[in-house]
């Protein structure tokens, strides 16, 4: 990344300098003045809390005497990594992320293809699809609760079952996955649609002339050309899914097999007031998410570089 940056910035000044120098602040000084408030604020609201969180995670705190703490080294981390409940939360998060992102991709792709193909319904669809996205996550949780909770909802009536959807082990997580799919598949569809719309239709016409079937056109033209858009959307959604908190917290109180990396950390430091261990769990979540984020930044690196060019 570092050498790419220098090459970009070094390439820049060779362009012909417009007659700008004399007036007002110099370009570089102005740039510094305009960028520094944001950078200071980011340092204050992002870097400092994270640094403090790491510091907290390396200490132990007395339950009896407020403010009393001692150095614990990595003990909080070994405790977290040796805790079966933390691992349960880890696996719930992974299952949630894998299942919801896969379903969102498949459904989102289908929706995007439909929107792209439907000439009459496109306007309505574009509007309707934004409704789940506009609904608050907490409200989504309430909504799915009203559908699945037994006397209020209709799910058991339709299926003829008497499952306790929100209170039993595999079902609660399934409902949370479905709720997330409902809320985010449309978003995925819009991202994929944007990718679909930049594929020139001439390619399809040419393929038709050459006798390609609809399926062949889909697998040989659409999918390969969509791959970059899909890849970015996938990683983007995975990052979101790994941080999931609202849905399990409101739908199931993060009980019944729905604890996640974020809910277990929050419960540990906020409800149980075990600051050191809770912070260690938060830092672990941070590290896991950042590992995926690195892949994300690498994937979209070309675009960032495009934005960084003069």
């Amino acid at each position, binding site marked *: 990344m570092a050498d790419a*940056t220098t090459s*970009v910035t070094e390439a820049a*000044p060779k362009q012909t300098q417009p007659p700008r120098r004399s007036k*007002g602040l110099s*370009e570089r000084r102005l740039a*510094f003045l*305009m960028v520094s*408030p*944001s*950078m200071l*604020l980011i340092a204050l*609201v*992002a870097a400092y*809390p*994270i640094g403090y969180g790491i510091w*907290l995670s390396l200490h132990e705190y007395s339950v009896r005497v407020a403010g009393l703490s001692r150095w614990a080294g990595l003990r909080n981390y070994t405790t977290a990594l040796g805790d079966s409940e933390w691992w349960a939360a880890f696996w719930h998060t992974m299952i949630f992320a894998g299942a919801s992102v896969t379903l969102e991709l498949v459904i989102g792709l289908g929706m995007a293809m*439909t929107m792209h193909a*439907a000439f009459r*319904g*496109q306007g309505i*669809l574009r509007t309707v699809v*934004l409704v789940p996205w*506009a609904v*608050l*996550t*907490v*409200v989504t949780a*309430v*909504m799915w609760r*009203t559908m699945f909770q037994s*006397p*209020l909802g209709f799910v058991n009536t339709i299926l003829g079952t008497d499952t306790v959807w929100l209170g039993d082990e595999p079902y609660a997580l399934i409902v949370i996955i479905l709720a997330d799919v*409902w809320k985010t598949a449309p978003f995925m569809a*819009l*991202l994929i649609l944007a990718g679909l719309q930049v594929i020139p*239709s*001439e390619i399809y*016409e040419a393929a038709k002339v050459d006798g390609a079937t609809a399926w062949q056109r889909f697998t040989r033209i659409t999918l390969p050309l969509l791959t970059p858009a899909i890849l970015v959307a996938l990683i*983007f959604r995975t990052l979101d899914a790994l941080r999931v*908190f609202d849905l399990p*917290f*409101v739908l199931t*109180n993060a009980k019944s097999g729905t604890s996640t*990396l*974020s809910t277990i950390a*929050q419960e540990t*430091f*906020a409800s149980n007031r075990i*600051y050191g261990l*809770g912070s260690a769990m*938060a830092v672990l*979540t*941070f590290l896991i998410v950042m590992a995926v*984020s690195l892949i*994300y*930044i690498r994937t*979209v690196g070309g675009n*960032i570089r495009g934005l*960084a060019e*003069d």
Partner: protein
Amino acid sequence: MGATTAEAPQAAPARRRKKTGAAGAPKTPWWLYVVVAAIVVFCLFPFYWMINISLKTGADLTSGKAYPPSPTLANYESIFQNGDFTRALLNSAVVSVTTTVLALVVGSFCAYALARLRFRGKFPILALVLSITTFPAIAIAAPLFRLWSDIGIYNTWIGLIIPNLTFALPLAIYILVSFFKEIPKDLEEAALVDGATYFQAFRKVVVPLAAPGLATAGILTFIGVWNEFLFAITLTSSSSARTVPAAIAFFTGSTQFELPLGTISAASVVISIPLIFLVLFFQKRIVAGLTAGAVKG
């Protein structure tokens, strides 16, 4: 898709097909309408069900009927008489608006410099900004939970605005950079040639032209903050600072057995409707902003 069009004797040229309903456009196959209808139901039905629940009280609530047998606004009346809910609306409005304005003002300077001015280190700054938008909120909430108590801003508006800025500012910067990039440079150059300073060129030429971009960044930031939940429940302890999502969750969490789901649904409908209108009204901009933030970026 388009299978029928393929076999049509004279497939209309691509450009004409874009026009909906244009004469000679290939007919939309019937099954496509079925799929369209299925998507509409998929997107709207859960919302309908919640409205249905919100109009029921007493025995109707547990009747499981797909429509309210005797629709009543009692739930809606009760939430507006609930001081905690109206206070939460105020808290949400203050926190969201303040955060959005701060993020836009500070962020637009930074975004302009990144999009337009020549200086070193743009790539690392953009990479940093983008990576912060992917931070898990929990990594900020844990330390702030302690820190805010120590410095006395636990359970206050400012205590929520600061962590919300962590995510709002990078998001605003990122969306704005891609919008500023799209403004033609010639206008600014012309202003500079006519004797404007860089700052005047920014304020008088770029900002007005960037108004749609600012609106988009503003709406997306606002929705992000309005939706925020983890800070809202971790960094507050009473209704004096609790925002709407947290207030709704606390309706839910208090009594496990007899949940006032009729009331909760009414509250949920009330806060969703303005947001849905906002989103529908600014549809095009939002989609442009989302794709700028995720696909292009």
